[in-house]
């Protein structure tokens, strides 16, 4: 925001309140009420408003207080945000960033535990990224703001409290690149967002058991970084996808297809995808735990894939 006067934030409670997860804390004091705009609870309209402003050259960052609320703005995101560059024959660019926390939290209930990446992935014209660590959150956010394309940045409710030492110097990450978390030889585990931590936990167990998993945080959900993924598949010949979105029509489903189409020759076993169950997220703690993929399930899957 300091670098470019056209960058502004639009969302509910982003200004005076500092953001429901404190992401925009103190920004209103620094930049004023117009640049950090508190909106009424009208997702459809304020998303539309931000897109209209972007058509003229501003670079708004739209915050959905919870990603699930952005379903109300689906028309604006799909038709106006994603497609305007195309239907206007290239006249308008929409450099917005749509961000917000999503994912399954701690017993937040079904409507507040939505994972929207699977719903948005078909929209042509948008880019989707999911951050998972403080380091990549900052880098991806900067890249998203600077990108001329509309970017949806998926954050996770449970990851806001992570602490990490990050460089003081400015850095920007590549929006279309995946991150190699742990190189290995036996199997490629593809994951993103919070499931990265479940995978790393499982990895510890696996290493003790003698396996050498290669863990890649795909980060870019649309388009997939098939370069990094492909190189990994060519090395290990086995793929396990661990994701938090639902099984039907999820990111894992698209990724499985992409890998099968492109790297079929390199696979020794079918691609296995572990996703959340196709149910609304229940409130009860134990049930919620069974909805998402747990480290023990990951360990079992790897053992089965690698015999």
């Amino acid at each position, binding site marked *: 925001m300091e670098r470019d006067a056209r960058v502004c934030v639009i969302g509910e409670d982003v200004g005076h309140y500092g953001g429901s997860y404190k992401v925009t804390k103190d920004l209103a004091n620094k930049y004023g009420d117009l640049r950090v705009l508190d909106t009424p609870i*009208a997702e459809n309209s304020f998303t*539309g*408003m931000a897109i209209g*402003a972007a058509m003229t050259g*501003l670079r708004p960052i739209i915050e959905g207080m919870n990603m699930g609320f952005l379903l109300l703005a689906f028309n604006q995101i799909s038709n106006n945000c994603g497609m305007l*560059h195309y*239907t206007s024959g290239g006249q*308008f660019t929409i450099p917005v960033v749509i961000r917000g926390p999503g994912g399954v939290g701690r017993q937040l209930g079904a409507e507040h535990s939505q994972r929207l990446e699977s719903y948005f992935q078909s929209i042509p014209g948008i880019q989707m990224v999911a951050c998972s660590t403080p380091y990549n959150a900052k880098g991806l956010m900067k890249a998203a703001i600077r990108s001329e394309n509309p970017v949806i940045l998926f954050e996770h409710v449970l990851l806001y409290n992570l602490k990490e030492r990050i460089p003081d110097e400015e850095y920007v990450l590549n929006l279309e690149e995946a991150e190699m978390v742990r190189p290995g030889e036996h199997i490629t585990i593809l994951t993103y967002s919070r499931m990265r931590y479940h995978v790393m936990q499982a990895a510890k167990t696996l290493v003790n058991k003698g396996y050498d998993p290669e863990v890649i945080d795909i980060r870019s959900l649309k388009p997939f970084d098939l*370069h990094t993924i492909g190189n990994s598949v060519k090395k290990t010949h086995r793929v396990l996808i661990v994701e938090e979105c639902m099984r039907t029509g999820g990111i894992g489903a698209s990724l499985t297809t992409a890998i099968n189409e492109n790297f079929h020759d390199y696979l020794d076993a079918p691609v296995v995808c572990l996703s959340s169950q196709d149910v609304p997220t229940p409130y009860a703690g134990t049930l919620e735990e069974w909805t998402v993929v747990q480290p023990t399930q990951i360990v079992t899957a790897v053992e089965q894939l690698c015999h």
Partner: protein
Amino acid sequence: MALTHRSTNLLKPLSAAVPFTSSLRRLFSTDDATAITVETSVPFTGHKCDPPPRTIDTTPKELMTFFRDMATMRRMEIAADSLYKAKLIRGFCHLYDGQEAVAVGMEAAITKKDCIITAYRDHCIFLGRGGTLVEAFAELMGRRDGCSRGKGGSMHFYKKESGFYGGHGIVGAQVPLGIGLAFAQKYSKEEHVAFALYGDGAANQGQLFEALNMAALWDLPAILVCENNHYGMGTAEWRAAKSPAYYKRGDYVPGLKVDGMDAFAVKQACKFAKEHALKNGPIRLWLGSCFVGKVSFELAEKKALLDKILEMDTYRYHGHSMSDPGSTYRTRDEISGVRQERDPLERIRKLILSHDIATEKELKDIEKEIRKEVDEAIAQAKESPMPDSSELFTNVYVKGFGVQSFGADRKEVRAILP
């Protein structure tokens, strides 16, 4: 002799952008200085604001320009009708004939730096904003020379350099975008306004009220214009809205009810609205209707200084779109009644004739010339080729920050890391 000389001049081919000029015995047509006073058909009705006066000054040049522009728009829409029936235009085609006064009057009141955004009945507004006939027809036929390169179609005309933001298919979705345009204008501290046009059908959308609330809250220079042609596709307004007095909605916002078939009323209202919006914030224009034979004067009290709603009372002769005959929900008598009594083009014609600015024959000649222009434009547009197959994948993304993206087609391989 002077007459023959004049006719020859008139039949000379002129390009679409050149205004009507000729060495007429009657000099007035290019006269910019003589003031003619006209009165709008009905007085304005204001809601929480003082309506502007109904007498307006104009010049012969402006009258002729109005006539020419409206006749061009009318001709274009009728030509589009034939092209559609000849299956050269496919999909949806929503025609604007009958409502031309709105486009022409609005354009006369503002500059190209002010923004206009509208829904899918956008052909004439595109023309008013400086679009050419060739671009319009080429886009309608899906050719490469169209304003959106053939990728948008009838509902997606845009012209960024003239501040025309489209062209939107989903009813009502353009109003929050319009508020965003106003937001950007306020953000950049420009002294311009944004006109967000919508119809009586869209007036029942929730996002309108949301947008109005936000625009009023933040004093955005937005003017919401309801082009009330009384039918939301096939549903008459009294069947869709509990309170068809659209200018009373969003009570805190000042509003103005305007006869949308009178180009001068529209011009006056838009001028008034622009001044108001710049000083005081959003306002609503209701180009609302008085039905033929019935005049309703609904005075409303709107206190707000911001937001203006303009309700424009207007009428469309065609159906909702080309697939709608337009006669299942209204009578032919009604349509022809409006055409006889309130046609915008006829009104200007009568004004011109009564003020002796041009003769009947001259006006007919202009119309002939316009017909020829439109036919030439269609011919030129027909020659334009279909878009190349590579165009399928262009403009999906802008090559942005970082590396070459794979894109949805997976044809491009990632190149370099920064």
